[in-house]
């Protein structure tokens, strides 16, 4: 692998290298990579074991969007923009929680950057703590399923809508389960001048409690149940949706993962599964996910 590869220390089945390689290949390595602190950074940027074949920078947990904005401003000022695209790779916590300030600033100023949120739905690098993108019902180490609580209570933050609300030209969701979808969206995104946001659902084998061999299957089930709709907004308008032929019940997705296993035995589990099904149904309604039968 030319742009990202030998030396990285990701777990077998981890979605991160799949997403990163797909993005870098889609852009032929013409990339300035900006990475927030997190799993990807730790598995790829140890001194002496750099796995990146493109110029790479990691500064802090919560400032990747700001650093990227600075790289972009410098390239603009020094007439070097044709060298490559400025692409952020940040986790869900770095994006939706601690780094949302710099992200909002970069969106607001509409810097010509592509922001990739690698969404594995918790702080996985530090051992599976809940983030703003952790879905309800997930048992994490900071929202553990206990005698009273059935895991996380509350919603998964709707970063897609938050990005769209900033008026940036291109916003999309994608999934490691569909690499051709990632490729297509990345190629399309960089055609837009300004800030672009793509949120990629990415399985974490240790955090989710799945075997590496079923990571792609689980990622696809998130899409097939309607829990992770793959959508695309151009200039604020919904322009494409990945349709689902026979939308599966959310249980099929949940039951494969340790993080949701308690929902099938917990006193409040049924209620939580019902809530998750409702969210999936709402997604289907909102985005028109269901392929209507003739």
């Amino acid at each position: 692998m030319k742009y990202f590869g030998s030396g990285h220390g990701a777990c077998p089945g981890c979605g991160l290298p799949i997403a990163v390689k797909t993005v870098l290949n889609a852009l032929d390595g013409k990339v300035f990579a900006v990475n927030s602190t997190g799993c990807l950074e730790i598995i790829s940027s140890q001194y002496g074991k750099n796995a990146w074949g493109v110029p790479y920078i990691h500064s802090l947990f919560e400032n990747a969007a700001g650093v990227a904005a600075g790289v972009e401003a410098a390239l603009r000022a020094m007439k070097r923009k044709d060298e490559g695209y400025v692409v952020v790779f940040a986790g869900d916590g770095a994006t939706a929680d601690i780094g949302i300030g710099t992200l909002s600033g970069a969106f607001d100023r509409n810097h010509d950057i592509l922001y990739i949120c690698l969404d594995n739905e918790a702080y996985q690098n530090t051992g599976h703590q809940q983030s703003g993108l952790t879905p309800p019902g997930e048992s994490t180490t900071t929202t553990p399923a206990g005698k009273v609580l059935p895991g996380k209570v509350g919603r998964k933050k709707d970063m897609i809508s938050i990005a769209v609300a900033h008026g940036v030209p291109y916003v999309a969701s994608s999934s490691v389960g569909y690499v051709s979808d990632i490729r297509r969206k990345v190629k399309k995104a960089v055609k837009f001048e300004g800030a672009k946001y793509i949120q990629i659902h990415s399985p974490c084998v240790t955090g989710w409690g799945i075997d590496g061999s079923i990571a792609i299957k689980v990622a696809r089930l998130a899409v097939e149940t309607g829990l992770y709709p793959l959508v695309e907004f151009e200039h604020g308008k919904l322009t494409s949706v990945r349709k689902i032929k026979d939308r599966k019940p959310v249980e099929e997705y949940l039951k494969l993962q340790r993080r949701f296993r308690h929902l099938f035995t917990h006193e409040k589990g049924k209620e939580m599964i019902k809530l998750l099904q409702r969210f999936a149904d709402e997604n289907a309604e909102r985005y028109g996910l269901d392929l209507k039968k003739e």
Partner: protein
Amino acid sequence: MKKVVRGFYSVAYSVKLCRPNVICAYPITPQTEIVENLAAMYANGELGEAEYITAESEFGAASMLVGASAAGARVFTATCSQGLILMSEVLFNAAGMRLPIVLVNTNRALSAPLSIWNDHQDSMAMRDAGIMQVYVENNQEAHDMIPQAYKVAENKKVLLPFMVCMDGYKLTHAYEPVDLLEQEMVDSFLPPYEPAAYMTTKKPLAFGCYAPPHIYMEFRVAMQQAMERAKDVMLDVFKEWAEVSGRDWGGHITVDFPDSKIFVVAMGSVVGLLRKVVEELRNEGLSVGLIKIRTFRPFPVEELREALKDAEKVIVLDRSVSFGYEGPVSIELKSAIYGYSSAEIYSFAVGLGGRDMPKDFLAKIIRDVAEGKERPGFAFKGYQEFEEVIP
């Protein structure tokens, strides 16, 4: 060309002459007019190809400078107080990444209670960041320091952020005649920035690696070595500046009346007033001299040892306090001259949060020390006696 300008403009105009590629800032009193001046220059097309970006916070501004500097740009920001503290995580990081960012800190107190007025508590909190700190006495020195800051920071023997500290209000808002630099002079003194390493797709490098225990310490030792080298690089640059500008601001410290028995040590704008006070006290027959510390980081250890080796009493006027101990300049000075001077050290924290320090107040402190009315050690001066009421 001499012009009467405010401190803000003396900085902004000098920054412009240094031809930065990227300026990012967030407004905060009393820094605001520096960046407003730069924004106006940008709006009028006077900053060449530079990008001027108003950030969403000081944290964001500093973050953008990290990216821009790593991409090979010459960068600038200004801030103070809460803004500097908000930047601090990024600035520690930038120093570790060895990025030659230049910033101006318009010294202001820290909250709580909220205070927009001047002291040195903000920059002192950044003491251990790995950032060079120089304190200026007046707006001409602030104006002159900007090109020198870039030249030192960008020197391949150094490569560390450089913070020019100027007293908020006392300097920023003051109108003073400033001999404004000429573009040609600055261009010949400060060549375009040639980064030792930068982000480019032509030669991909990784910046901001993580370092396990087997290698982390070496990076930090390298920072200390860079600071040590910065001492000499600064002296060379200061000397060159004196030659090309005709204004000699001295080395890491300046010493007035080196043969005195008593010395007053201070940093920043109060030095100007202290000169007058010392002159008057000497006319009264007091053997008192004045030491202005210009460079706080790297700390002028050897210079202070030499200057104070025969001193009997040293009065340190701190504009800050390390709660639970004493003023940071005093702490450092004591540590520097330990074993090299038998002088008694009188450490005073004065002028916190803009508390006035009139001439008579400063003269009384010195006179009292001279007459044996003060004991060596630490005390606050210039506050009203009070009783704290905890409900």
